[in-house]
């Protein structure tokens, strides 16, 4: 389990998260949705142990504030909303930096992660010369290589992804969401901040809907993604429909009225 209890976070003079609780289970994809500025990234940063905050975060039962950085790195990988790279490392070198914590990384782990995100042909190009979407996938490859297999020797491992598909074309959106799905199906845990509600409905098992720095609703995808709840969170009237054959919910932006 990945659980956050009573998280309070203050940045500058803003209280960004108010007494927030959050749970994610291994074997599931848990989406965090909500409008801009609702605290999704802030919550994810608390879950990954970036920021000093009030409350407690436990990963597989261990309080993350008691774990050393390299212990955390072996248990979970974090894809930030935006990444920077100061020096002209190649794509392959970038992915290998992700393997820093491992004493003896598996042979070819970096190349496999690149192949998984469709970037093996760009292995030797400087990351800064890749397109925006390619760079996002390169950083995802770095995170996948760092985490390795979805289940460790005695506990599940975790992917914490902040808008992993925000810069991707539709085919690569599906590819990346499938990577997350497969990771969860193999026993790992995935927490993904998502803006695309249709992809969320297709791939997530449960959703936490943030609004104004607190969770407005959380539960299974079907429970949370209702016209009513979404309308309240995003501040506009939405009608949730269902695609005829598989019955997964979808949202038509055309149904919005200011």
């Amino acid at each position: 389990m990945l659980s956050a209890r009573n998280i309070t976070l203050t940045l500058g003079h803003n209280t960004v998260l108010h007494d927030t609780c959050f749970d994610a289970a291994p074997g599931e994809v848990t989406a965090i949705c909500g409008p801009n500025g609702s605290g999704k990234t802030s919550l994810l940063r608390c879950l990954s142990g970036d920021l000093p905050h009030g409350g407690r975060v436990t990963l597989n039962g261990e309080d993350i504030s008691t774990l050393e950085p390299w212990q955390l790195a072996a248990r979970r990988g974090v894809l930030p909303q935006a990444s920077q790279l100061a020096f002209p490392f190649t794509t392959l070198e970038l992915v290998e930096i992700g393997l820093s914590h491992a004493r003896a990384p598996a042979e070819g782990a970096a190349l496999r992660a690149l192949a998984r995100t469709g970037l093996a042909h760009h292995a030797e190009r400087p990351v800064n010369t890749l397109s925006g979407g390619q760079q996002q996938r390169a950083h995802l490859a770095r995170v996948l290589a760092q985490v390795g297999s979805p289940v460790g020797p005695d506990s599940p491992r975790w992917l914490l992804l902040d808008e992993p598909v925000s810069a991707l074309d539709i085919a690569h959106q599906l590819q990346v969401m499938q990577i997350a799905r497969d990771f969860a199906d193999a026993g790992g845990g995935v927490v993904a901040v998502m803006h695309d509600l249709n992809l969320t409905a297709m791939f997530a098992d449960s959703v936490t809907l943030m609004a104004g720095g607190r969770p407005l609703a959380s539960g299974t995808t079907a429970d949370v993604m209702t016209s009513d709840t979404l309308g309240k969170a995003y501040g506009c009237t939405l009608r949730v429909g269902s695609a005829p054959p598989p019955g997964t919910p979808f949202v038509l932006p055309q149904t919005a009225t200011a």
Partner: protein
Amino acid sequence: MASLIDVAPAPRSRLARARRLHLWLALLMVVIGALSLGAGATGVDPLAALWRLARGLPLERTEAVVLLDIRLPRLAMGLLVGAALAVSGALMQGLFRNPLADPGIVGVSAGAGLGAISAIVLGGALPAGLAVLAGPHLVALAAFAGALASTWALYRIATRQGRTSVSTMLLAGIALGALTGALSGVMVYLADDNQLRDLTFWGLGSLSGASWSRLAASAPIIFVALAAASTLGRALNALSLGEATAAHIGIPVQSAKRRAILCVAGATGAAVAVSGGIGFIGIVVPHLLRLASGPDHRALLINAGLLGATLLVAADMVARSIVSPSELPIGIVTAVLGAPVFLWILLKRHGADAC
């Protein structure tokens, strides 16, 4: 029809290339070092001296003095100072995630300089007991103290709740550099004629004051700093992704930054103490190496030490021979050689950014 499986030829490793470069640079260092032993105003030939020794004859007096007491300590100091400056540059650039950062920029050199200048000007006014205690190491110790104090001040200013903000540190460094520069100016104003000549020569940078006793004060500090720096490669690689991501990857970011800062203070302070303001080595050397074999700090830090040492000894040969039998301050040579390279790098970067 594109293949579904994304296969690519096995990539060549730049790290392996950079590791091979260790050997070539070490070889180059030995060659340049040997050449520098033969260069000088007195025309003493080290080969002839070796030949005498080989035949079991003792060295002539001038040979012994020139080779053992003048050229050898000067060579050793050139190697140590060059390595210290280049590695400090590479460390700062990694720490600040900016390829143009340098100990000169964040005020570390200025702090070391203030320490050294104060020691030169006020040294005579020390209580006799303390002066005897510090002895010939006074300038080195004061410079090291100055570097450490300015680095520590920077760190305190830029660090909140255990997190160092790089931009605050850069800006604070500029302010501190200006302040220590002004204080150094006051010291210069206080200096008498003799001290002034010392200061001018020292300020332009020179290896001409090399002696075994001066080396004894600085060499251990530089050795420890260089050895510690060579363990920071992985951490600096991760830091190029930003502090948050470096922590996600498993790097103990705060302790890595603290160690890097201590290494820079030690290496820069000790180097400035014995040689004054020698610029550009710290910026040019890591840049050239990144172009040659990539930015991986695990190899870069070692290569920077080797190439920095070689370059400074070569620059010293130029400084000694160009206006022989007199000599130019070496800081002038490194600036004349280094500034155009630096500008060329800037132009190239500009081109790369534009397209």
